[in-house]
């Protein structure tokens, strides 16, 4: 399941959706939250822009790449767009597999690629009212090297 949506999501509901087969032994989930501080500045709100159409294609493509490398029984990627506040959920990646090694690796792989390839952009509103587009982190690019085959 892949969804780009404004509304929030519920962990229990998403977990039950992933528990679709009795052969599943491991479920790993990642959830990204809006932090109160970024680059040393106090953040109050976040606005998320995306490229409709390309976003969904890109997420499908990343999940397919993961399925080619690891045994995945079910997967979910949810990314929210629009206006968010501090502590809000931004993104959810859930992987259900027979064994935990596959679930951990696939979940982290999808997040690492989502961070560097999926066309989303964050704009922060600081507590002083100023707005600022978030800069891409070089460290996110470097992280990809661990997935080189």
């Amino acid at each position, binding site marked *: 399941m892949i969804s780009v949506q404004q509304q929030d999501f519920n962990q229990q509901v998403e977990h039950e959706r992933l528990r679709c087969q009795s052969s599943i032994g491991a479920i790993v989930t990642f959830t*990204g939250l809006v932090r109160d501080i970024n680059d040393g500045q106090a953040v109050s709100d976040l606005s*998320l*822009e*995306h*490229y409709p*159409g*390309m976003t969904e*294609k*890109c997420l499908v493509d990343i999940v397919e790449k993961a399925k080619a490398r690891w045994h995945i029984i079910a997967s979910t990627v949810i*990314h929210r767009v629009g206006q968010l506040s501090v502590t809000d959920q*931004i*993104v959810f990646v859930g992987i259900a597999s027979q064994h935990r090694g596959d679930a951990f690796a696939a979940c982290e792989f999808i*997040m690492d690629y*989502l*961070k*560097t*390839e*999926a*066309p*989303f*952009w*964050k*704009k922060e509103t600081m507590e002083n009212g100023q707005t600022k*587009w*978030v*800069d*891409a982190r070089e460290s996110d690019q470097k992280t990809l090297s661990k997935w080189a085959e």
Partner: protein
Amino acid sequence: MITVLFFAKLSEQLGERSLQVEASQAADTDQLFQYLTQYKAEWSSILNSQPCLKAVNQAMVNTNVTLKSGDEVAYFPPVTGG
């Protein structure tokens, strides 16, 4: 016509979210980029002063790509989702 899209900081700076360009003006993405740098007075410095990614028909490309009428080309800053 070729549809050109801009996103995020780049679209704010350029003051445009999308525009249509005659296919005859842009045989490939290098020509299209050249055309855009001359579209308005300040666009050259905006487009050349920062890292700028491009996607053709919603797939990221790093090299020069031939274009035809109906193609969709997007320019945007490095992504910051997740």
